[in-house]
């Protein structure tokens, strides 16, 4: 389930090589793009203001973002069909954040986030099939159906956390473990604008700075904490400055290249032993907070439409790829078709895979098992723990 390396990237590259082989000579192999400069806090140097992208990488990012987009829309559909229940927080609109970060760090780096996790889980190497069947609560899910939408885990990936803000001290702890063991790796600890005022986040900032922990704090500012706009929630909405003594950068979270370059810059800083950094990604979510929130009682449809037409991360990348000759409209359409097929296949699996066996009710309570029985609903049901 948690495969070494980047299997999704390898599969994507195979596909791209097949596509590319037909009209390789027609396309540019690399292009350079201007990217928005970052706002800085407590920093003398900055991430670059231009980024180069190879054709291979461009097609990879496109496929990754499109996969996340279509996976989330499929989850929306399945939720409305009541095949997915409970919580379902969707990531569409924020794809550039997840894709940009993962393409700037290593698989040996660690990452933890909150509950809007499906896209991040995919980027950390969990197949769409495993994500969708976790959402539908089947045994083929990445947590065998026992976790659900908010509790997906993988290699060097700690979820998927339901309690707002709790994941940030956890992330600082993961970073602590890297430094303690003398590893070169860092931990990316993600949270949203809604969590940014949590006390425990400032506690994590304090310890990370004091002990120079290799932690990259990332605030995904999608402008709304549930239904509360940032201006109504925070006395200070400059989230990249909220780390105080921790240097911060504010990044255009709708541009995958911006996110990639900023993350690389931050990762280099952290790996050089200078301590933590805070990165605010300015982004947007098209869906409401969760599937229980229509998302239009606290913002206008016009606003959502405007972001879609002017700042959609996938459209932005598409325009760059086509405009620079790295790809063509037709080639990208073929990737769209391939992605749709993959998502449909995963969805078929997720709706036909069986639910976990009833005996799974009492498994994984303890790692070091004990012989004691687990009390059931009545005293006459003493269940075996496993």
């Amino acid at each position, binding site marked *: 389930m*948690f495969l070494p390396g980047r299997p999704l990237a390898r599969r994507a590259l195979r596909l791209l090589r097949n596509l590319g082989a037909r009209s390789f000579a027609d396309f540019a192999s690399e292009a350079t793009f201007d990217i928005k400069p970052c706002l800085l806090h407590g920093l003398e140097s900055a991430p670059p203001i231009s980024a180069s992208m190879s054709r291979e990488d461009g097609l990879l990012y496109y496929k990754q973002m499109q996969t996340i987009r279509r996976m989330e829309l499929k989850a929306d559909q399945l939720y409305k069909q009541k095949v997915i229940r409970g919580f379902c927080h969707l990531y569409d609109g924020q794809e550039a954040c997840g894709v940009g970060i993962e393409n700037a760090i290593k698989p040996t780096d*660690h990452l*933890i986030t909150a509950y809007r996790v499906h896209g991040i889980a995919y980027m950390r190497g969990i197949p769409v099939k495993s994500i969708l069947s976790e959402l539908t609560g089947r045994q083929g899910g990445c*947590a*065998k*159906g*026992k*976790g659900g939408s908010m*509790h997906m*885990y*993988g290699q060097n990936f*700690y*979820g*998927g*956390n*339901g*309690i707002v803000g*709790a994941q*940030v*001290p*956890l*992330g*600082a*702890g*993961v*970073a*602590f*473990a*890297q430094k*303690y*063991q003398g590893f070169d790796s860092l*931990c990316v600890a993600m949270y949203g604008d809604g969590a940014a005022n949590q*006390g*425990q986040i*400032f*506690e*994590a900032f*304090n*310890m990370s700075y004091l002990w120079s922990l290799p932690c990259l704090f990332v605030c995904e500012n999608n402008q709304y904490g549930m239904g509360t706009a940032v201006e109504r929630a925070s006395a200070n909405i400059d989230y990249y400055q909220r780390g105080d003594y921790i240097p911060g950068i504010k990044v255009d979270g709708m541009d995958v290249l911006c996110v990639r370059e900023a993350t690389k810059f931050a990762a280099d800083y952290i790996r050089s032993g200078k301590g933590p950094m805070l990165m605010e990604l300015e982004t947007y979510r098209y869906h409401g907070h969760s599937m229980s929130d229509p998302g239009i009682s606290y913002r206008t449809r016009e606003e959502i439409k405007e972001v879609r037409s002017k700042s959609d991360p996938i459209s932005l990348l598409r325009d760059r790829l086509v405009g620079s000759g790295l790809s063509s409209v037709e080639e990208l359409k073929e990737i769209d078709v391939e992605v749709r097929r993959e998502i449909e296949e995963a969805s078929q699996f997720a709706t036909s895979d069986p639910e976990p066996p009833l005996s*799974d009710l009492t*498994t*994984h*309570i*303890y*790692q*070091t098992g*004990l*012989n*004691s029985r*687990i009390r059931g609903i009545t*005293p006459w049901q003493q269940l075996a723990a496993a």
Partner: protein
Amino acid sequence: MGFAGLAVGAAMAGLRPICEFMTFNFSMQAIDQVVNSAGKTLYMSAGSVHVPVVFRGPNGASAGVAAQHSQCFAAWYGHCPGLKVLSPWNSLDSKGLLKAAIRDDDPVVFLENELMYGVPFDMPEEAQSPDFLLPIGKAHVERTGQHITVVAHSRVVGFCLEAATALAKEGIDCEVINLRSIRPLDMATVEQSVMKTNHLITVEGGWPLFGVGAEICASIMEGPAFDYLDAPATRVTGVDIPMPYARNLEEISGPQVKDIIMAARRMLTGREESRATA
């Protein structure tokens, strides 16, 4: 919250941290990290993320530290699946159980007692070893007896033994059980004892409602030992109030040796006063 979460994260990433709360009263702020991040993660991840962390610190009443610093959390943590909860009484318990907790791969809440830190106990030869371990989930019979089972955890185990010595002079022979482990709770040892003595008293420093004693009594009702009871099981607990500061009030806020003696005597003889003084 911050450092408790940091400890849990470090455990998830491969270390074996010990997170110390100055007292468990402060753990209330961090309780989300203990219960949700540590306790439930193995289950939610279907076994892929382990959390080998130990939370330790003084629990329950101390002396003169008043209401916000005197709460017993055995019932609160004992309530939650996914955690292991230990409550040592003497030096043997403290060493054997703490080592076992650290070596255990699951999150363990280790409830110590401030007033016991300074109390010396003889340690047998085998307990001097750096690998001396006690099993998690097993209670220990500190004193065997025929007439009544007295079950306790932490500091009041000592009170129960003192009470047993006094009661022996009146011809009442107590079996004193030191729980050692709150979760998992060793009901098998308690049941076996009750089926021999036919009488049960639980003793704890914590509050009565929804407490450790409440759980033991309910379990006895549901299990094989119920038919062996000659009297209803009784709980001896702290008074159902926030802990007062004034010494005279504090003294009557929690179970003392005389309370245990009186409860046992009353259960077995119907009298609160000893025959000798009646």
